[in-house]
């Protein structure tokens, strides 16, 4: 079926089977491979995208359902080719990752959190990422990254915004 999706501020006209998950649609039909497939049953969070600004699991939605909403992927919060957002840079500074598989989702969750709560406590951060499984890091450096990003953003007196 033909659908129009608003992805990172761009309207995409797509022809998909209704059963195509938003995740598969992004990866296979739009070529945005930053959202990753981990479990396809809603538990790991690797497929996280922002849906009208809120973190959701893209494996738990069929592509046609996303019509009429704004979808933001990791590609959409990356300021430009080779350029990192404050949050992405903070993840690099603390090494908030290892294999990088859960990372785009973690970065998006951090974006969503910091839009909502510019001054999160450690517990807030722990809670915000608790729906995203990272098998590599034990979370410590991810928590550090988000705390560091929050601090830097506060210091810059610049609220987080989605670039697109």
């Amino acid at each position, binding site marked *: 079926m033909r659908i129009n999706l608003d992805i990172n501020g761009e309207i995409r006209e797509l022809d998909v*089977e209704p*059963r*195509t998950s938003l995740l598969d649609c992004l*990866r296979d039909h739009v070529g*945005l*491979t*930053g*959202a*990753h*497939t*981990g*479990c*396809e*049953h809603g*538990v*790991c969070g*690797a497929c996280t995208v922002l849906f009208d600004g809120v973190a959701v699991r893209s494996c738990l939605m069929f592509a046609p359902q996303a019509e009429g909403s704004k979808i933001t*992927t*990791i*590609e959409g919060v*990356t300021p430009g080719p080779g350029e*990192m957002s404050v949050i*992405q*840079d903070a*993840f*690099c*500074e*603390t*090494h908030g*990752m*290892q*294999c*990088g*598989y*859960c*990372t*785009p989702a973690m*970065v998006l969750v951090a974006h969503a959190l910091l839009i909502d709560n510019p001054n999160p406590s*450690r517990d807030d951060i*722990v*809670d915000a*990422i*608790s*729906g*995203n*499984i*990272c*098998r*590599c*890091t*034990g*979370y*410590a*450096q*991810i*928590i550090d990254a988000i705390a560091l990003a929050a601090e830097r953003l506060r210091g810059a007196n610049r609220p987080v915004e989605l670039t697109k």
Partner: protein
Amino acid sequence: MSAISKFRFVSTDRRVREDRRFVAGKGKFVADIQLPNTKHVALVTCPHAAARIVSIDKSAALKMPGVHYILDGAELAAATLPLMTGLDTPNVPRRPLAHEIARYSGEWVVAVVADSRAQAEDAAEEVVIDYEPLPFVLDAEQALESNDILVHEAHGSNVLLDKTFTWGEVDKDFAASPRKLKLRVKWGRSSTVPIETFGVTASWDPWRDMLDVHASIQMPRFNDQIGIALKIPVTSVRVHHDVDVGGSYGVKRGIKHTVLCGYLSRRLGFPVKLLEDRLENMRGGDAHGPERLFDVEVAFDDNGIVRSMKMRALENVGAYAGRSPFQLGKPVGAIVGPYKIQSVQYRAVAVVTNKTTQDAVRGFGQAPTNVAIERTMDEVANVLGLDRLEIRRRNMIRHDEFPYTIPSGTTYDSGDFHAVIDKVVAHTSYEGLKVERDALRTQGMLAGIGLAACLEPSGGNATFEALLNPKVQTSTFMDSCRVNIDGVGSITATMHTTSSGQGHETLVGTAIGEVLQIDPELIRVVRPDSLNSLPSGTPVGSRMAIMLGGAAFHAATKLKTKLMTIAAHDLGIPVERAVYDQGNVYDKNKPEHRRTWLDLVQIAWRSYHRLPADMEPGLAASHIMQVPTGGTLPDADGRVQMYPCTSFEFHLILVKIDPDLGRPEILKYRIGHDCGVVINPKIVRGMTMGGIAHGIGAALYEEFAYNDDGQLIAQTFMDYLLPSSHEVPDVQIIHHETPSPHTVFGQKGSGESGYLGSPAAVANAINDALKPLGISTNRLPIKVSTLGDMIAAAQENKSKGH
């Protein structure tokens, strides 16, 4: 071996160069690689724990839209050789698809190839297979003790391995010891379960006779095994190493997947891709980890000095065996942990059962073994009424006793265990922790302190192969690096395997930068494909810092020497007078008399007439590194030098259990960690934190549980519970550094750190908490419900006055 005393880049808190691409979602994982005209595989799996495949009807499935081919085990078995196994067990063949008999629930029976994965799944549902269910065995002890049900009839028993080693005067030591204690410890079946499942694309080019493989692998000699199984020259297999692997920690081996796709691509003429879905991964990905039963007996004196140990380790390897039984061999290199136990009897038994096949898991059998040892140390202290930390201190090897050779023949390189412990308790008072624990107890909580001290053997030799399979004569496990300085003076280095988050590109850059005194950021690190590669043992055995870092160091050193030789020759001075300074070389006696980096590049690349006689032009060097301390085979008694280095970790934790709920909560977590010289602090911290989290999973949450029908019931992420950020405490690492004498910078391994001790620490803390109730548990994972039921029963007994 040269040790550098002061570092420019090593040990400094530098960024990890791989990270940039990952934060932008630009990693190149196997699922991201789209070759034109790729077709997709879905699998039909066996619903029975064991069954004879009576017939397979593909007709309806072949008519489904988008379907290209349906492959069964008979066709594949006729065309390929069985997969390589580690032990000498020719009658236990392992194949990608079940042939005639399927031996576990979830085993792959038929592969469907279609235009899309969804279509392949549609057609998979239409394949009609007639099975005749067979009797099955799930329990390792039953499989060991009885031949009534054989997983592999032709093998004649279920036992793949049963070897007993005796190192030292075990009988005498037992007879001479006033006290003995027996303990049974069960490590439940868990694994590393990366968030990325295994995936592979195989693409055959008949005009070049080339099978291109992109896969999320971490497997030594992967290309050899594929070529052999497919009966094609290994030179016709090109494994691409520039694939980012979404976590592995040992299990991403994927031989069967790749042989399957390789065969299909050759048969069908287009690229064939198999990305396991989570169910295929959990049930039939052959990536389960150890399920091990330990019977430990120790002999000790009234002071708690443990003299001797007998250990039987019974491993339930599942239905087939690849390298997994070797996980009984690796712990031989640290079989006494950090303790001076003077004699050991070790019986290693591996049996097949009708469960999913295993592969290598982080630590290669060491983490379960450490639980057995550390639970035992606690119990020794308990029966004597001695403090558990004190008893560890008494038994531990002292700093001045290194190098120290343990009864099983391995020499530990260096360590200062007492210093690490002292540092940890200086950071967090052990006595203070006891006060905290006791306060919780008076509030009605169960509370316990967990201690665990253990080693991380690192450097990754493969002598366990020869130890357990005398037909194998492996006494090396190489890694390599090639460094090239190009015609304009830029540096490119190679590594020859994939990596899965360990930061190897950063490692190579740092090591070379250190030697050549050049900013590591300026050094390009690439991963040539397998046909362009030098030997690599891959990131197993906590070895890359030592082996890849070492190879990079040595290759760069060769170049540095060459640069100095060229400069000396050009300056007309003896090479001893040449001083290397950040790429430039000058005369020690006349520092203004010098050749710059670009001068030297110019000479090497273009001015052959200025090179010393017979010197090769250009500036390239390779190094293939032998494992330090390697090179020998086990002796007749199975004494063996296993890994070259031993990192050390000491865990100190406080756990609270609400007695009504049985739900443990880790309140404090401290780890003292010594992995020698740290090359990159961010990476080492990450490895340790990740390892601890993984170990907490193994101790409390994760288990591939089966029901009595032989069905895997923990096959989704709703039932196989990976720790989330809520379950991982805020861990404090207390760092210590005892350099290894065997490595180029003094580094040791840290790829398995945390994981090797955290399950033991958690188990010990819970048992300490249970002590006032007079109960204990030695079965991991310690699940909430089980613990709750145990506590309730104990309380009831107590109130009844039993």
